[in-house]
């Protein structure tokens, strides 16, 4: 199977938190956005919302920093996953992630990482605006991913500066 990745187009996000909620239902059998493996950062007074998810880096900081080699790439999907039996809960991966896309279960400190739902992501199915899509990895996919990702700092700047749509 070819590797897949999620592409996040934050400009489209309506901030509904469906991705977080369905993610927790799928992986944790509970409806709790705090246990999602995707998270939406919201500036509701600006209408700006940014979903954060694992970027499946080439040289992932989470993998490099893990003292127990608990973080590994699943070569069936391309997703970075955590082996719960090896993980000692030091949270090094959480702090090392440059995107803040490695999450922690607030109740028990367990590391939560997007596993791409084995190649068929639930968040993509329920995202109403197409802000999260899933595509097979290719040169074009990466170019698109980079293009969309580059918009995020601008959006954040806009959210903090409070500019309006022209």
């Amino acid at each position, binding site marked *: 199977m070819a590797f897949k990745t999620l592409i996040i187009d934050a400009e*489209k996000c*309506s*901030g*509904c*938190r*469906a991705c977080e*909620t*369905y993610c*927790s*239902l*799928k992986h*944790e*059998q*509970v*409806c*709790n*956005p*705090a*246990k999602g493996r995707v998270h939406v950062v*919201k500036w*509701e*007074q*600006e*209408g700006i919302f940014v979903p954060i998810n694992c970027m499946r880096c080439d040289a992932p900081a989470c993998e490099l920093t893990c003292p127990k080699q608990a973080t590994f790439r699943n070569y069936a999907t391309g997703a970075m996953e955590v082996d719960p039996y090896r993980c000692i809960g030091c949270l090094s991966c959480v702090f090392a992630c440059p995107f803040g896309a490695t999450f922690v279960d*607030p*109740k028990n400190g367990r590391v939560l990482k997007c596993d791409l739902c084995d190649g068929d992501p*639930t968040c993509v*199915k*329920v995202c*109403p*605006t197409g802000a999260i899509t899933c595509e097979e990895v290719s040169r074009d996919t990466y170019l698109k991913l980079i293009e969309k990702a580059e918009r995020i700092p601008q959006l954040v700047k806009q959210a903090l500066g409070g500019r*309006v*749509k022209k």
Partner: protein
Amino acid sequence: MNGWVGSILKIDLTAGKITTEPTEPYVEDYIGGRGLGVRLIYDHYVPGTNAFDPSNPLIFNTGPLTGSAVPGSGRVDVTALSPMSNLRAKSNFGGYWGPELKYAGYDHIVIQGKSEKPCYLWIKDGQVEIRDAEKLWGMDTFETQKAIQNELGDPEIKVVCIGPAGERLVQFACLITETGDAAGRTGMGAVMGGKNLKAIAVRGSGGVNVARPEELLEVSIKVNREIRENPAYLELANWGVSRSIPMMYEHSFFPVGYFEDVCWEDIIKNYQGIEFMEKYQLKSLGCFNCPGRCMSFFSHADIGKGVTSCEPFSGFTGAVWNLDMDVFWEATLLCNRMGIDGTETSACIGLLMELYHDNIITPGDTDDIIMDRGSKEAILTTIRKIAGREGYGDLLARGQMAAAEKFGPEAVEKVDQIKGLAPHAYEYRAYKGTGLIAAVGHRGDPLPLRSSLLEFDWNMSAEWFQQVAREKYGSEDAAIPTSYKGKALPAFISEHMERVADNLGICKWIYTLFVYEDAEMPTRLFNLVTGKDWEIDKLLKVSERVRNLERMFDVRQGLRRADDTLPKKFFEQALSKGKFKGEVMDKEKFEQMKDEYYDLRGWDKVSGIPTREKLEELGLGDVADEVLGL
């Protein structure tokens, strides 16, 4: 528990006392949300006290599906004694606050007493704190939310709050969360302000447990897709309600001015909503976990940003003779920031415009503001003055009737209200069933209900919807707006369906109105989340119990059959133009519709009071004993 998080939070602001009570004993009879809230207010309100008495319970109600992975599960019901009607208040808001309250551990909050100083509540994962709000007092609703998030150091905290209008006890002050999600009607902001309570901030890391997670995931993904593909929601997500507004006027479903007439040609031809949408809509937004984004987020450089939907689109256009969409947006945003109900506010302005037009008031009565129909200055200044309780705004802040009484008997004659509230922005002269629903309804404006929309839909394809009416309500007449026949049963059924959605804490636009037109899907989702195995009839029976208990609360307040009526104008002044020219509500036939309705309900026709027999059948014997006597 699955669905419910299991706990009712009770706060006494006078004593600073915080207690809890389990939710479970109530759920079999009342489910949750609105229904359980009705039982709570029936039990907690002290008969004989007024809305500003510290004992008036202000109650927030989420349902078993609120905050779950079910589309449209962001709803919260609010109740108290209303300062506008002295009857049970009811308002409902969306956004993200309700789910967060459940994640923090509570299904309901009952707030009684009055804080000595301005305060706000901070609820986090089962911990509750009453905090000082001295610094927040005077801030608008947008500023308040930001200030609390900053003070507590967490931008993900969800806040529902009042604005300056609520602090000043403007009778129709509302609650606001996010940039425009409002518990708009019945004056909940005034009740909260009366308790010196500025805001309720919530944050939780808990979740909603689900009985059948795999099955729910599968069904819920399907529901998500069906909503997204539904034509009504595609329209709303792209255009909000802007494209349907001229159509509403064309079919005489929206009033022009202060229910003066219908079919204002200018608005049908020159409504600028679509252009405004194209120019200023940044995106369309929904509530928690909702794919059907029915709200428009506007970003206007000179006026400001925020969301709106639905009523302001007609309230601040046709109802005040205004075609300038910038004025519409400025008025809407101002109401939301100040925390006043846009519907009642636009009605207040409409009233003044009519009084001025008919030479009943002069500019001297309105601080030299000329209340010309459609005047920008009149619209915006009146809102500011109501929120600030300045000059004539202070009169209006006490309610339309109080202001009219000050202007004299001719002005009093002009006031159009049902049970102390401005009738929801629909026209009733041509739409008889809709008029019936408004008259018998619990607060004078329980619209939209399914059978009311059926009357409107009839305009699009008469034959088709008459057939729908025959299948669903046993009579083709149910769909024909101008017919008085067969209107009681659809009203009865629609009222029960509406309460299913409200009791579960989900959006009634999606469930029972636009996408799923009956209670079947809500029932299925309810069973998957809670693990119960209820038939649809059992949920509808709860709705009937809730409807009757709501009625008995109001009967205890003195409500009788005569209060189930419409403003005089609808009986006396026929529509002068449009496709329903000449239509007026026939008083006798109107009363006949009511007779049929009371019969179906098992209520006494003379008094409009539920019979002991009906109440006992519904397990409300204790209520019968108290209100009807032993």
